[in-house]
C-alpha cells in the first residue's frame, strides 16, 4: 500500500505540472489560431 500511494502521488503531481506547463508556457508556440480576419491568421 505504501509504495502504491507514493507512486499515485508522484503521477498526480507530474500530470499536474505537465498540464500547467503546457497551458502557460508552451501555448504561444503550439497555438494555431483559426480565427480569420486578423492580420496574421494564416488562412490565406
Amino acid at each position: 500500500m505504501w509504495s502504491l500511494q507514493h507512486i499515485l502521488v508522484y503521477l498526480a503531481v507530474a500530470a499536474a505540472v505537465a498540464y500547467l506547463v503546457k497551458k502557460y508556457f508552451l501555448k504561444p508556440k503550439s497555438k494555431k489560431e483559426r480565427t480569420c480576419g486578423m492580420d496574421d491568421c494564416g488562412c490565406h
Partner: protein
Amino acid sequence: MGKQLKVSLIGNPNTGKTSLFNLLTGLNQQVGNYPGITVEKKEGTCRLPGGGKAHILDLPGTYSLNASSADEQLVVESLLRKEQPDFPDLAVVVADVENLKRNLILFTQIKDLKIPAILVINMADQMERRGISLDVELLEKKLNTRVVLMSARKKTGIDELKKQIEDYQQLPVSPCLSVSELDATYFERLQKAFPEEDLYRLWLCVSQDVALKKIDESLLKANEYSERNTPEIKRLQQKETIARYLYINRFLNNAYQVDRTKATDWRSVLDRILTHRIGGYAIFFLIMLLMFQAIYNWSSIPMDFIDQSFAHLSEWTNNHLPEGPFTSLLAEGILPGIGGVVIFVPQIAFLFLFISLLEESGYMSRIVFLMDRLMRRFGLSGKSVVPLISGTACAIPAVMATRNIENWKERMITILVTPFITCSARLPVYLIIIALVIPDQTFVGFNLQGLTLMGLYVLGFGMAVLSAFVLDKIIKNKAHTTFVVEMPAYKVPMAKNVLYTVLEKTKSFVLVAGKIILAISIVLWFLASNGYSDDFYQAEEIVRAQPENTMLSEQEMQTAVASYQLQHSYIGIIGHAIEPVIRPLGYDWKIGIALVTSFAAREVFVGTLATIYSVGSEEEETIKERMSSDVNIRTGKKLFDFPTGISLLLFYAFALQCMSTLAIVKKETNSWKWPFIQLVLMSGFAYLVALGAYQVLT
C-alpha cells in the same frame, strides 16, 4: 466520408441567426441580443430530411459587404475567398421581418457574388402585432430566389428551410444588379485589368480599402493595375447602395406593407422611459441592485450545502481510505481544490441567468444606447459597453469583442480598461473575503454583504471609466466615428437561449477554471507536504522539545506540529520569502502564496487558501471557519480582519492578476508593449491603494 454541403448563415445583427443555428444544429450556443456578440466561430451539423447532412456556420452579423469592422471583414473574406474552407456552397441570408428593406441590401450583394442564396425572413411571429403583411411569392419572383418565412421562436418554417437547403442546386444564381451600370468607363477598365475575374467580386476586393489588403495586394501584384483613387471609390460605393435601394423599392412597396393602425405602440413608450436621461439611469441602477441582492440571497443555501458536503467528503476520505500520502492528497489537496470551484457554481449561474435575461429581453440594447451618451465623454463609444458588460463574465471574450469597434483609439482604450471590470473570476475572491469580514446584517433593508459586492462592481466600472478618461487625453487621436445602435424589439426571453447561456458559461467556468485549480492544488499540496530541512522532517520532535509547548494538550500539540511543518515546507519557504513585500498591506505568507498562484487565474486564490488551510488538519471544519479563526502571528489579531479584508478586496479589484488577459491583449494589439504597460500600471496602482487602505484602517 462524403463531402458535406457547406451552409453559411449570414445576416444583419439581431436577426436571429444564432437562434436559427441552435434550431438547426441543436448544439450548445451563446445567444446574445446586442450587436456584435457573435465573435467566435460557431459550427455545427444539420440533418436534412433526405438523409444528407449540412455543415452550418454561424457568421457574425454584418450590415453589408462593405466591411467597416474586423467582424464584418471576417464575413466578407469568407465570401470572397473561394479557396478557403469556409467558402459556402449555399448562403442562407437571415432577415428580420421588421427591417426587411435594410436586410435586403445585404441579400442583393450576396446574390451578385453568384453564390446560391436562400432568403430566410425570420420573426414571422411578430407580423400580426406589427401589422405587417407580406407577399412571399412576389418577393420570390422579383428577387429570383427561394424565400422561407419562419419564426425561430415559434419553430415554424424550419422543415421548409431544410428542404430548400437540400434542393439548393435548383436555385437560380443570376445577379440582381450589374455594377458596370454605375460607371461604365471605370468598370470597363477594371474588368480589362483582370479579365478572368468576376466583376462584382473584383469590385468588392478593390473597394475594401483597409479590410481586404491581402486579396487586394495579390491581385495588384498579379497585374499592373494600380489605379486606386479613394474618393472615387467612396463615391461609387454610395452610388451602389443607392442603386440597391432603388432596386428594392421597386417591388417592396407591393410585396411588403405595414398597417400602422394595427401596430401596438407600447414599444416606443417603453423606449422613452428606459432611455430617459435621468429615469433611465435610475431604472438601470435599480435593476442592478435587485440583481446583486438576488444573486446573494438565492445562492446562499446551495453554497452552504456544497461547502458542508465537501467538508464531509474530505473527512470521510481521511477516515475510510487506507492511510498514506495519496489519501492525504485526495482529502487535503484535490477535494478542497474542487470544492473551492464548485461552490461558486450557484452564483455564477445566477449572474448569467440575469445577464442573459437582460440580453434576451432587448433591455441590454437600451443600456448600450443609454450609456453611449455617458461613454462619449470618456473617450469610449456606446459600443464599448458591449465589451465592458461582457467583462463581467471574463476579460478575454470582452477584449475579443472589441473587434467590433471601428475606431482604433476607442478600441485601444476599451481593451486597456476592460480588465478593471469585475470579472467572474474575481467573484470567488470577493465572496469569500466579504463573507469573512463584512457582517451578515441588513442596512436600510439591504443585505450589507450584497451591497459591498455591488460596491465592488461599481468601483471596477468607475475605475475603467476613469482610466479611459485619462487615456483619452494621452493617446493620440485618429478619426472619429459615429455610433449606430441596434434597437431590437422587446421580447419575452426564449427559455432555450437563456438556458444555453447559463449552462455554457457555468460549464466553461467549471471546466476551464476547474482544471487549472485542480492542477495547482495538487502541486500546492505537494509543496506544502514536503520540505528539505530538518525543521520539516523533525517537526514533531522540535515542537515537543520546545519548553513552552509542554503544557499543550495532544490536540493542540498536533495543530502546533502541523503549522510548524507547513511553515518549513517548500511552500512556507516561498511564502516567507515574499512576505516582506506584502506585510505592509496586512497580508501574511499564506496570503502571499495565494497571491502568487492566483496570477494564473484569480479564482485560484480561493483554491490555494483552501488547500493551505486543509493540509495537516483532520477535523471536519469548513474552510471558511478555518480561515476566520486563523491568527496573524505578527499582530496577534485575526488574520482576516476588516483592514486586511478591505485591502485584499481593493488589491483584487485593481490588480491585473491574470495571465490569460495578458496573452489576449498581446494577441489583439499585436505587441507586448500594451500588456506590459497594463500590468505595471494596474498592479502598481493596486498595491498602492491596498497599502493606503490598510494603513488608514489600522
